[in-house]
């Protein structure tokens, strides 16, 4: 059952039952709201954008604080490096573009001038995952978690909904040092509420059955599919727990090891390549501390394509039913 202490959206269960429609919102909207709050709180917050101000939801900040907003044009290398200069001069720059371009195209600039330089820059990758949809694979970032988490000094967050995205944005402005977080284009279910805690480097158990036989560890909007899968599995008599793994780096190692010990089987869920992503990071922790059978839901070494988000999630086997199958498979693999 859902963890009541976390005050999650009360419409979750009714939505699983098909009785009520859950509110949906793109989590980039939460970023836009969080950016204004961060700007209200700290004069040093500045925002840079590369010709995607509205789409990456930087517009509200740009309107409220025009003197602290910089349009760099379609130039992601410049976006990262100007921010690097601001970040070593007492400013807290947020830079946003589509994740395939930033942190895609400007990876080396981010590595040298932000990460190694330890400049206080927050990199925000919008349009992550295949659920970007009709734009196709060129605009669907499915490598960004891997390419960012591999950098020393870099922290990585993957918010599950717009409310959590707002909290991540505000938290990022208060953390000193380089941070990356990813956003999604499409509307996704609101899983949390304003009251739900978000603490960097903490993973919370969102769903817990009495005797969980497997743990589903999810990051990002697919957390909804994971919770839905847990709900259906419980009806079938398969007990699980679901962890919202929003802090990909640093990860809540203690919690990961704890749920591995409790369940002896793990399924990771993310809209990202299975290599090097959040699931890979979980595997690194468990291989070292407490190896258990694992299954990985995500992109299986392929690119996406054009299509509707729900069609793509199904085609690339990241839906509720795929999670259910993976849980059953991983339980069978237990000794």
């Amino acid at each position, binding site marked *: 059952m859902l963890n009541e202490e976390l005050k999650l959206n009360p419409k979750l269960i009714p939505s699983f039952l098909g009785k009520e429609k859950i509110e949906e919102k793109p989590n980039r909207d939460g970023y836009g709201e969080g950016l204004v709050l961060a700007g209200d709180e700290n004069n040093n917050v500045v925002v840079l954008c590369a010709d995607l101000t509205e789409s990456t939801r930087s517009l509200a900040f740009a309107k409220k604080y025009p003197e602290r907003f910089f349009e760099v044009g379609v130039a992601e*290398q410049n976006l990262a490096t100007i921010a690097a200069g601001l970040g070593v*001069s007492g400013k807290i720059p947020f830079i946003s573009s589509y994740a395939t371009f930033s942190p895609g195209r400007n990876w080396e600039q981010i590595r040298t001038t932000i990460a190694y330089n330890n400049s206080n820059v927050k990199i925000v990758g919008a349009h992550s995952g295949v659920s970007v949809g009709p734009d196709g694979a060129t605009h669907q970032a499915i490598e960004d978690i891997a390419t960012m988490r591999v950098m020393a000094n870099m922290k990585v967050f993957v918010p599950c909904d717009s409310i959590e995205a707002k909290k991540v944005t505000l938290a990022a402005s208060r953390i000193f040092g380089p941070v990356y977080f990813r956003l999604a284009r499409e509307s996704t279910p609101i899983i949390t509420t304003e009251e739900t805690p978000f603490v960097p480097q903490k993973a919370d158990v969102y769903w817990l059955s009495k005797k969980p036989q497997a743990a589903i560890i999810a990051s990002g909007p697919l957390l909804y599919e994971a919770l839905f899968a847990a709900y259906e599995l419980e009806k079938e008599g398969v007990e699980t727990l679901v962890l919202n793994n929003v802090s990909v780096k640093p990860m809540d190692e203690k919690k990961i090891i704890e749920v591995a010990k409790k369940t002896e089987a793990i399924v990771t869920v993310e809209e990202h390549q299975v290599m090097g992503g959040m699931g890979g990071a979980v595997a690194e922790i468990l291989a070292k501390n407490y190896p258990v059978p694992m299954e990985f839901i995500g992109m299986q070494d392929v690119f996406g394509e054009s299509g509707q988000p729900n069609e793509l999630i199904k085609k690339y086997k990241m839906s509720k039913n795929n999670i259910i199958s993976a849980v059953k498979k991983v339980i069978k693999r237990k000794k």
Partner: protein
Amino acid sequence: MLQLDDKKIEYLEILANQIRQDVIKMLVEAGSGHSAGSLGMADIFTAMYFHVLNHDPKNPFWPDRDRLVLSNGHICPVLYATMARAGYFPLEELTTLRKINSRLQGHPHRESLPGIETTSGPLGSGLSQAIGIALAAKLDHKKYRTYCLMSDGEHDEGNVWEAVMFAGKNRLSNLTAILDRNNIQIDGFTENVMPLEPLKAKYESFNWHVLEVDGHNISDFIDAVFEAQAIFEKPTMIIAHTIPGKGVSFMERDYAWHGIPPNKEQAAAALKELRTLGGKIKSEHE
């Protein structure tokens, strides 16, 4: 600002020679590193740290200091030697260049050594970082100026032109770029590898104020830097024409010396030549 009289110029010229000798000693000790650009920029680094910059070597994090951003980080031997001579750290430390546990990394790392403003090495990213620093000065209503020292070869990088456009658009008059126009890069002469000319016209068309000087004429160079401070409408680019390897005859103008150090015999010959020249390393059209 101290008066720039003949005596001061002579002092700077002798200092620049000392710094060249430091560079040779560092490079031969390190066994790797970039000779040509380091020697070619010795006069400009000396002028910057000993006459132009408003800075305090004993207080490298002073918030109002002028910022010097070295974009082409590979010529850091001359940066380190000049900083040590200016009092940022002991001269003895210079021979730790490129060695284990040294603060003098093969390419400059901001967090390793106080006084280094940005991490650099990968080319083409210094100007935009200098822009970020200059923007911060404007936001904070600070008077400090930002100087970006760049190479000509790194103008092959697209990131440079993104930065040039941005600085022109935003009229960053508190930013001065200084281009080491020595016409060489690793694979040969710049105009063969990837032609850059007409550089002055290119910068002007991007809404920059452009000055051209002899990079070995300390007095002319300093005049240009102060002229740039008087331009309120635009950022300024000072194209400084330099001779790679300047001061060591067998290195001068030879692109083969871009990325290699002298061996022991070559270093001894270079040091002998430099000691003999004393304060006589000057531009050839004075």
